[in-house]
């Protein structure tokens, strides 16, 4: 039972999810919205339940669409509340995600009914460690189309997102930097900050939901905030911030999966711990190390 069959996909999924969310996390960090990920993770429930009520089906596509719509709506509402009620972003997020989650629970209980086993964990929240690829016999399977066809769909989606997000950064490098630094100047010079912000929120919604579906909420929340914070502690320029956050994301993703299961097995142990949880813990260690390193350099 080869490495490719058991560990390759979780390893890739964790790294790709961390990369996609880590990059977007930079813009959240620089605009004081790091907690948006946490809000989104609570806010997706009504989207899923509505998707189930409308389509009556439990398969992934409608649920993911519902979740993305709910995430986008929640993020927009946080912005509106912050401006209209002059609330701090944190308070606005707290109100929006509590409200969305409560609507989701009420819909679940009254609309879906008690007899249907539709809870968030089974439908949306993926489990990193279950992303096995039994069709793989070894590294050669990476080239074998039949084996590739049997790859878990969760990996394909988060893989697509993990390609799209860096492309988005590359294409709109200076525009996103200007938006984060000085939206007013962006408006005056015609770089449409409102449209760009909406695009970013959409990208965040898709990235979060794809990551939830592949690796679960725990890893996604850590991926959104740890790489940017570590990069923030270690670098002084925007380019370095983005590059270091990407590296930290990959290290964190790989480190977590390897430490959680691959290493114990290599040492002949027959137990393993939660891969997603370990990715977050490795992230925590990286933050601690960066914080100590940053203190020395003054």
């Amino acid at each position, binding site marked *: 039972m080869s490495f490719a069959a058991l560990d390759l996909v979780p390893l890739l999924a964790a790294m790709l999810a961390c990369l996609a969310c880590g990059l977007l996390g930079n813009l959240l960090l620089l605009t004081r919205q790091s*907690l948006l990920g946490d809000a989104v993770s609570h806010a997706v429930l009504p989207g899923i339940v509505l998707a189930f009520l409308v389509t009556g089906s439990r398969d992934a596509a409608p649920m993911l669409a519902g979740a993305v719509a709910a995430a986008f709506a929640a993020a927009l509402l946080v912005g509106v509340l912050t401006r*209209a009620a002059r609330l701090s972003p944190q308070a606005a997020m707290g109100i929006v995600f509590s409200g969305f989650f*409560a609507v989701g629970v*009420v819909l679940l209980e009254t609309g879906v009914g008690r007899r249907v086993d539709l809870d968030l964990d089974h439908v949306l929240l993926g489990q990193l460690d279950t992303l096995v690829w039994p069709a793989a016999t070894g590294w050669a399977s990476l080239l074998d189309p039949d084996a590739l066809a049997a790859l878990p769909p969760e990996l394909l989606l988060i893989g697509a997102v993990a390609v799209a997000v860096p492309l988005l950064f590359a294409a709109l490098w200076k525009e996103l930097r200007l938006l984060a630094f000085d939206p007013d100047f962006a408006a005056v010079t015609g770089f449409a900050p409102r449209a760009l912000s909406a695009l970013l929120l959409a990208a965040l919604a898709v990235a979060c939901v794809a990551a939830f579906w592949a690796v679960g909420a725990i890893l996604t929340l850590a991926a959104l905030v740890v790489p940017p914070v570590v990069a923030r502690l270690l670098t002084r320029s925007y380019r370095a911030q983005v590059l270091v956050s990407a590296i930290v994301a990959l290290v964190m993703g790989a480190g977590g999966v390897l430490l959680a299961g691959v290493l114990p097995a290599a040492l002949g142990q027959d137990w393993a711990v*939660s891969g997603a*949880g370990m990715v977050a813990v490795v*992230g925590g260690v990286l933050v601690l190390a960066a914080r100590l390193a940053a203190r020395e350099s003054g």
Partner: protein
Amino acid sequence: MWEALTFQAGHNAAVVAAGCIAFGLAAGAVGCFVLLRGRALIADAAAHATLPGVAGAFLLGLALGLDPRALPWLLAGGGLTASLAVLAANALARGGRVKDDAAIAVALSVSFGLGAVLLSVVQALPVGGQAGLSGLLLGRAAGMAEADAWTMAAVALVALAVLGALLRPLSALLFDPLQASLAGLPVKALDVALLGLMLLVVLAGLPAVGLVLVVALLIVPAAAARLLTARLPAMAALSAGFGAGSAHLGVAISAAAPGAPTGAVIVLVAVAVFALALLASPRRGLVAALRRRAALLAAARAAAR
């Protein structure tokens, strides 16, 4: 519905109502100060940060031969890790390079991850009685027992007493932290006291009403109160009132409506109260603003011609 409002809808409804009202009172009051301190979501981080403590306590209890499922023991563990997470967030943010919200987000996600790791260890152990361990964080208001209600009442009393005693120094701190520290106020001690109260509310609330309701009642009533008044004592009282009111109305509605989950309904009522305050408040409300703005618009256009 009416009988539920007057505590005649059966013992359980009365106990749940009393418990939730007391909790709403405590959460509203404490939440007001936490909101003004600009750390609204610290409660969400603290709530998530109890998970490793609960799982850790279960494992430790097992190793020490204690009863690993004793609630006080598990909550002690949860309280410990939640406090550590809050302190870690403060330490991370102290450098200045990492802002408060990012530090809270790191503390939240890393402790959530550590909790998942420890839970996976618990799950692998061939021991029974881990039923509902993670369910501890997803307490349900409707399942509240009389003992829980008394705990809530005690928490409310302690919270109101401490807030009452510290009202003047706390309001000085919240008004202008710099000025307060210059004036020799023990800013650090006050902060710790406030966070301690927040933790008390979180730890009492989690097993009884669940994570989302705890976070919601610590933020939403306070935000609504802030729309209606600027004076701190009035705001805290109003926030406590909104918290208790939302709980009372929420329980009544859930007692009357078939299948309506009590905790979620309380949250929806609290959000509705906020929405009403947002629309209707004379000072900062939208309706008043829109009306006046329309008048201004007309006048401005007339002047421009």
